[in-house]
């Protein structure tokens, strides 16, 4: 019943073969798969960390850029405002000058017109006076007396303002 024979050796060999087969075809693939998955997860986590870091960096960069852009925009607006106000000032000054010029021109024109009118009136007055003098002369008056009368008359005219004359 208990007989030890060559079966013992055969069983040892059988078991070693079995262990070898299981190791090669069952254990190794599972371990390899576990390792591969572990590596994959590690890789993914590393990548996620790196990505997060990258994202943080980008965010900071963009924030800095945005701040810079804001400053620039403010500068541009300020400059534009300044330029606009300068332009407005310049324009206003020019318009003022133009108005001034126009006013001056108008004044000169008025002056000239008046001078002209005075000239004209005076000539007319002289003519009228001559006519009046002729009539007086016709009444046989003394020639010298006549002259003096005219001169006085004209002088009287000069003294008064022409505009106030009731023509």
């Amino acid at each position, binding site marked *: 019943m208990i007989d030890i*024979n*060559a079966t013992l050796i055969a*069983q040892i060999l059988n*078991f070693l*073969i079995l262990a070898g087969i*299981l190791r090669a*075809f069952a254990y190794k693939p599972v371990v390899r798969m*576990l390792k591969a998955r572990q590596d994959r997860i590690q890789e993914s986590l590393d990548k996620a960390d790196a990505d997060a870091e990258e994202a943080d960096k980008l965010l900071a960069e963009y924030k800095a850029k945005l701040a810079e852009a804001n400053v620039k925009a403010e500068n541009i607006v300020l400059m534009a405002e300044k330029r606009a106000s300068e332009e407005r000032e310049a324009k206003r000054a020019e318009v003022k000058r133009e108005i001034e010029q126009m006013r001056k021109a108008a004044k000169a024109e008025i002056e000239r017109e008046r001078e002209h009118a005075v000239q004209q009136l005076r000539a007319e007055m002289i003519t009228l006076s001559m006519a009046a003098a002729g009539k007086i002369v016709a009444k046989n008056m003394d020639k010298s007396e006549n002259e003096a009368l005219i001169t006085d008359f004209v002088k009287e005219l000069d003294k008064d303002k022409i505009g106030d004359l009731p023509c």
Partner: protein
Amino acid sequence: MHEIGVREVVHFAGLTFNWETLCMTWLTMAIVILISWLATRNLKMIPTGWQNVVEILVSWLDTQVSSMMGKRGLFLAPFIMSLFMFLLTSNWLGLIPTLSSPTNDLNTTLGLALLVVVLVHVLGVHMKGGHYIAHFFKPTPVFVIINAIEEIAKPITLSFRLFGNILAGEILIIILLKLMPIWMPIPSVLWLAFSIFVGGVQAFIFTMLSMAYLANAVKEDEEES
């Protein structure tokens, strides 16, 4: 029904083999390999269903082995796994009518026990050198006798425990069937159920003791408690 204890033998190249034991061993090997193949084919990066169970078992085994033997013992994990699967299948195979367990033959159990013990000593000498041999002479050289008896007892207890349990279980199945009339199947059914339990427990004990012996040889010195 063959006579209990009488084995069919074949002679090959001047050696004697127990033919039935060999056939049952090959059948066991085939079953174990088939199960492993079914369980581990088609492994995917994202595990589903059965693959989860296999991975849990393998990682549990790795944890057990590395906690018992340290990192250096991890290469023994497939050996331990094969041992357990082989013994479990062997023990249960004999519960199927007309089949018998390879482990009801002392040749099988003693062979495995000797394999384990030889492996222990070879690995011990290989990994620890003279220090491993020296530890048989501690604390005093006289203890070498006790240590030697212990080392010799290891394969004997390992093999006879398993052999006795399985053989007794199978004998009792036959005896119960012969003793009880056919309309009284309860005792043999109960015994069959118990044999399933015994088969599992014996496979577990053999494997665990093998692990403990191997751990003794493989574990690094600073890891010893």
